[in-house]
């Protein structure tokens, strides 16, 4: 009896080992193409040149902005645009000068604007993700009256030029005396048909019906099932939706431009725009410093969570 279980265990172990090896070989085969598929040297060189040219195009403006952020207005026009105007040892001073000028131009509001952007993006992405996942789960797992109509309307609005809605939104918020408040940016940014769509796709594919049934038989209420089981299963999807909403809010310009007028409520994009549009403004180096510091949080999110981007886009691309 015991020897039988032993041998079964061994067989199981051997099988797993073989599987692992096969997996490894498959992995290797993916990178190592057969000779008939090996590209010729010429193809390889052309490909690398194309890829690098594209990379230069996409990264050059960012590189230039970094260089420019250390320059004074006269160095901006006078010095070589591709490199720092001062020696590397004087660079910290140049950065400090431009940083203090940036705070001067923004009347000390710069970090307040970054903070505002974080609040707008963070809160609306958080609320937006929860409600989108709830609605996606509802339409994926329940039959309710009017469901198909609701799905149709929301999906239709995915192709709606949403910026056009900003104009009536402004006048609605205005008549509710809500313009020039934080809510006037957060509420419109909470709602994303694309977030709903992603939530629905993920709920369809990664929440098994059997699990819900089992939980119901065990006597769990619907709310408890959702908050303890479903949310955990949907966690990766929620990161994706959160990212999309966060960046969409951070990058939105028209909405804050219309809704917010006082300096202390501006997000960083609007603040920088206000700075460039000043008639007396000439300190482009300081502005570039602000631009770089202002996009830093988004870049960090990008690099840190990049696999979630692709997951979200894959759902859109394959299902859409």
């Amino acid at each position, binding site marked *: 009896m015991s020897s039988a279980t032993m041998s079964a265990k061994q067989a199981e172990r051997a099988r797993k080992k073989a599987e692992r090896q096969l997996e490894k070989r498959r992995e290797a085969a993916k990178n190592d193409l057969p000779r008939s598929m090996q590209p010729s040297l010429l193809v390889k060189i052309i490909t690398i040149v194309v*890829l690098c040219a594209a990379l230069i195009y*996409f990264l050059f403006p*960012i590189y230039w902005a970094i260089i*420019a952020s250390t320059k004074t207005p006269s160095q901006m026009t006078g010095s070589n645009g591709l490199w720092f105007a001062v020696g590397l040892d004087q660079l910290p001073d140049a950065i400090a000068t431009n940083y203090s000028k940036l705070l001067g131009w923004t009347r000390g509001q710069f970090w307040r604007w970054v903070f505002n952007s974080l609040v707008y993006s963070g809160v609306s992405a958080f609320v937006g993700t929860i409600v989108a996942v709830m609605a996606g789960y509802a339409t994926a797992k329940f039959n309710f009256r009017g469901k198909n109509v609701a799905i149709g309307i929301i999906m239709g609005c995915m192709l709606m*030029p949403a910026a056009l809605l900003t104009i009536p939104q402004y*006048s609605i918020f205005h008549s509710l005396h809500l313009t020039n408040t934080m809510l006037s940016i957060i509420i419109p940014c909470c709602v994303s048909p694309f977030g709903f769509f992603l939530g629905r796709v993920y709920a369809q594919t990664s929440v098994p019906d059997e699990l819900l049934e089992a939980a119901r038989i065990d006597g769990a209420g619907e709310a408890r099932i959702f908050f303890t089981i479903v949310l955990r299963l949907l966690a990766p999807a929620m990161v994706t939706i959160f990212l999309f909403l966060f*960046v969409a809010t951070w990058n939105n310009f028209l909405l804050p431009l219309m809704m917010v007028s006082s300096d202390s409520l501006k997000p960083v994009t609007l603040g920088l725009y206000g700075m460039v549009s000043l008639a007396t403004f000439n300190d482009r180096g300081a502005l*570039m410093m602000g631009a770089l510091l202002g996009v830093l949080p988004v870049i960090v999110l990008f690099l840190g969570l990049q696999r979630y981007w692709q997951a979200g886009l894959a759902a859109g691309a394959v299902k859409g």
Partner: protein
Amino acid sequence: MTATTSTVAAGKAKRRAAKPKASLAAKRENRTGWAFMAPFGLLFAFVFILPIIWAVYNSFFRQVTEGGGAYGGGELVNKFVGLENFQYVITSGQFWTGVGHVLIYTVIQVPIMIIAALALAMVVDSFVVKHITGFRLGYFLPYAIPGVVASIIWVYLYNGQISPIVKGLAALGINVDFFADNVVLASMANITTWTFTGYNMLIFLAALQAIPHDLYEAARIDGANGWQIAMKIKLPNVRSAALLAMLLSIVGTIQLFNEPQVMQISDPGISKAYTPMMMAMNTSQGTITPSGDGPASAIAIVMALIAGVLAMAYALIERKVNEQ
């Protein structure tokens, strides 16, 4: 025969017996479904549905001052004007100039961007180069830069006094003015392309990576080379992704606003109605007359209709072309 009838009858009886219970369960499901739907539904109604109704309603009114002297002082009154706002939009020269800008954008910038994104995705997915993570990330990075900031950076790169690009081209004997009347739209299109090509590339890459690798092996056994695999297997398999990317880009273009709004600062040649979105914004803020919610709503509605027609036309043409 009798056996079948009896089972059918039994089944019917069973169903009838189960009906009250089932409908109770259905009722509960209905309630639960709506409970989960409600938060999103309410927000959606407030942010999407109500504004649409509001815009349609308002588009029949115009805000006029009544009872004041020549210097105002009167009260703003909503006056019903019927279809006058729409008539104003449709006969407005500056509206159609704006639509023209957007259409040129749609016809030239969107295809260039989509084709570039598709080509980059194909190259990145082609196994010719092994370490692609850096490239992928670099291409996608501009998407993290807000449109306003991207526009500010590019406006400086177009500026002859400070831009190494303009200076470099001048040193080669090529003098370009990126703000010249017939160039400025292309300069703008470049900013959009720069921002969104990597994003679209990721959409295509995701679709390409979803293709089962068996297909490539089968094609290889049949003697297909890399180019043939790309054209005959990869391209047809990213069709739905391409449709989605095109539609979203067309819709995005309709709302073109950030780039012209920022470029306007250094180029006064860009008017307040350069794109319909700018015109709607400035109308609503009162810097274009007739101003107010009524005319602004009418602009937004006409533009939304044009967007719908464009998107539908594209989807239809795409289907027709692929049927052949």
